[in-house]
Structures are given as C-alpha cells and as structure tokens.
C-alpha cells in the first residue's frame, strides 16, 4: 500500500512538472498574447492544465480549481447529453451529478491511465446510462483477480498518455468529413448502425465498413507510433 501511495506521489510530481513544461512550451496551442480569435469561446485548457486542476481538487479540495473545471466541462457535458436526447432539465440535472462525481472521485483519477477529458467523458457517459436507459453498465473490474493483466512492457506512463492524446487529436483532425460525421453519429446518436444508415441514406453495409475503416484508422495511428 505504501508503494502505491509513493507511486501516486511520484505521478503527481511528474504531472506537476509536465504541466509546467507544457505551459511554457504550449505556444502552438495558446498564444500568450491576448489575441481573441473567437471572442465567444474560452480558450480550451490544455491536457496538463486539466491534470493540474484535478490534482488540486484531489490534494487540497480546491474549490477554485473545481470551478475552473466546471466552467470548462459542464457546458460541454450538457451539450453532449442533449445531443443524445436528454431534454434541457434532465441534461442539467445529470451535468450537476456528473460534476459532483468529478469532485468526489478526483483522488482516483490516474493521469497515467487517461486524460482528464477522457475521465470526465466516461463519468458523464455512465451517468447517462444509469439515468436514461435504466440499465446496468457491465464494467471491467480492474481489481478482479481473474483479470488478465497487461504485460508489463505494454503499460503506459503519463508522458505516453499525453502523447497519445495529442496524436489522437491529430488523427481525428485528419479524418475525411464523411468519416468524421460517421464517428460523431456513432458517439452522439444513441442509434444502431441501421438507423445511421437510414439517416445518411447509405446502405447498412457501407455504414459499417466505413465506420470500421475510420475506427481502425484511429487505432492504427495510436498503435504505430507508440511501438
């Protein structure tokens, strides 16, 4: 157990350094000069900044950090829920529950496993399944003794995690308009492929094969460069 705690401390330390480095090196993503390209939109927080905020919440129960996270994620999560069919009222309720979950579970967030946005996405997704579909979501239990563990060599660290996130973003931006549309429909429409086929006017087989191609492409992109 002590090892686990020590490991967490090391992780936190690495996360802080990364956040600092990324802050200095991030002039691609965020210009330091206050040039407002899209005055309506708040500059997105970078992945290391998000990690630092969650860390502040976990370690110090810092409400200012939480407010910042809330400001960034809550409107997006609400839009996500409404895309998937929640009405205004329900989306609002679920956003609030999801964000309280973020506060409560901050200590269990592991930056070596996932980006903050991925973690928040899974929390919102699960809230939605609980509330709307009234179904259980069968989850993989990472502590289950019967789980076949990751071969040691495949395990990723925080740095790899950050690299994955960046590569994935690039890979998504390189998708064709049609591939991007199909992927969005797969995530933002609680629809079987048949319904997607109807809506796009494409044959079902075509929807399936194009979606498969797009997903395979994203996966390959990640795999190749991480080897």
């Amino acid at each position, binding site marked *: 157990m002590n090892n*686990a705690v020590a490991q967490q401390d090391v992780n936190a330390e690495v996360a802080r350094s990364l956040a600092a480095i990324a802050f200095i090196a991030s002039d691609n993503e965020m210009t330091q000069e206050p040039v407002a390209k899209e005055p309506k939109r708040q500059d*997105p927080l970078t992945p290391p900044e998000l990690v630092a905020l969650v860390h502040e919440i976990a370690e110090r*129960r810092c*409400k200012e950090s*939480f*407010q910042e996270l809330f400001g960034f*994620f*809550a*409107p*997006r999560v*609400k*839009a996500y829920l409404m895309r998937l069919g929640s009405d205004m009222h329900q*989306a*609002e309720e679920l956003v*609030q529950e999801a964000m*309280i979950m973020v*506060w*409560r579970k901050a*200590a*269990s967030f592991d930056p070596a496993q*996932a*980006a903050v*946005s*991925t973690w*928040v*996405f*899974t929390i*919102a*997704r699960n809230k939605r*399944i609980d509330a709307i*579909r*009234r*179904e*259980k*979501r*069968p*989850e*993989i*239990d*990472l502590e*289950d*003794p*019967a*789980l*076949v*563990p990751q*071969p*040691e060599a495949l395990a990723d660290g925080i740095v790899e995690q950050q690299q*994955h*996130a960046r590569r*994935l973003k690039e890979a998504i931006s390189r998708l064709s308009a049609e591939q991007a549309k199909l992927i969005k429909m*797969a*995530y933002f429409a609680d*629809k079987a492929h048949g319904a997607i086929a109807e809506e796009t006017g494409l044959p079902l087989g075509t929807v399936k094969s194009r*979606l*498969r191609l797009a*997903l395979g492409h*994203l*996966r390959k992109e*990640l795999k190749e460069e991480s080897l």
Partner: protein
Amino acid sequence: MTSASPHGHGGAMRALPANHVTDELLAAYAAGTLSEAESLIVATHSALCPLCRDAIAAFEAVGANLLDEIEPEELSAGSLESVMAKLDDAADLPDNVVRHPSSKTAAAAAAEGFVLPEPLRSYVGGDLNDVVWRPVIRGLEEAELSVSGPEFNVRLIRVAAGAAMPQHSHYGSEYTLLLTGAYQDSSGRFARGDFQMADSDVDHQPTAEPGEPCVCLIVTDAPIKLTGPVGRLLNPFIRY
C-alpha cells in the same frame, strides 16, 4: 470440477486471446451506446484481453475529443452555485478507490482461480461451479442469464468434451465468448478468451475438443436456425 481444468489460470504466462471484439463493438462500448447484453460480453472478453482494454481506452479518448469540440450548451442560472453548495456534503465522502492494482497482486489472487471474470461473475451470481445447468440435448446444457432489454438472449452453454453442437446458422447476430475448453468450426480454433461473431452468412457446427467441457457465453439477438438433418427436427423444441 473446474479446479482441474487445464486452461492455465494461476500461471504467470497466461496466453492472450487470438480472436478479438470488432472495433465497432469496442467503440460502441466506449461510447456507451451498446446494449447491456452486448456490453456484458464485450467487457468480459476485455477482462481477459489487455489489447481490447487498450482499444476501449483509445475509443473513450475519441469520445473525449468529440466532447472537447462540441458546441457548449449554456447552463441554467444558478447551476454552478447549486453544485458548489453540494460539494461540502460530497467532501465527507472522499472516494479514494484505488483502481489500479499491481499485476503481481492480481496474479497472486488469480492463483485462487476464478474461472469467470467480472462483470460476468456478478451476472452469474458466482463462479462457474455455481452455475445451475439445464440440459438441452445430449452433450449440451445451458443456463440463461438475466439481462435487461428484451431483444437479446444471454446464456452460458456447456458442451461436453468432444461433443458437437447442432449445425446451425443465424437469423441475427450471435456473439460467442469462450471461457473454458476449446472448440473448432470451419473458421478455426477458439480457446479461452476468444470472441467469435456469427451472422446469417455463417452456417457452422462448433465441435468441442476432447479433454474438458467447453463453456461459452452466448449473446444472440434473434433465434438461431438449426440446419443439420437432426437440427431441423429439433427446431420447434429449442427455444434459442
């Protein structure tokens, strides 16, 4: 007597499955749009397959990217205040679940030998020894699992060592996850952790290898259709 089964749990070098869940299913699981029945078989395969766990993580990251780029929806007035007011209650219940055990602990615990991984074990209400089997035909038993959603049939089947399943094809999709033993059909050999997807194009007759019974988790979204000479006679009696 599953403790005698030679499929290798407890050994440090457990073979990874060779046949995986498709990217579409993994992505739908990550997106949260998969039915409970399909999620159960995808998650159970993934408990036995670090590669598919990786893929799920990647597809969750895809979802997060879409979330990043979504046009934000304005919150109701007082939304933040209402959440902030609840934080102090929530703060009393810190959720310090340690979610990532070292693989050593997991391997040591695996020596105790659960055959069924989570989340399947919870749906069964125990391990393989606790399953109550119902005979179907000679050499074949089944146990239905209760999963919400009427459109799927979810069950475990146990095929006696060396026995052949009735020849059949499918009206809809059939997902199979192999849990103990091994079987062969025209498309190859399947062993622990392997996932097979069959639809109306596939007419197959899986045959269990000799040695130990072959236990599979099966999810079907429509009845299968028995196509062999004996199967055609049995069709009216088998409620698949």
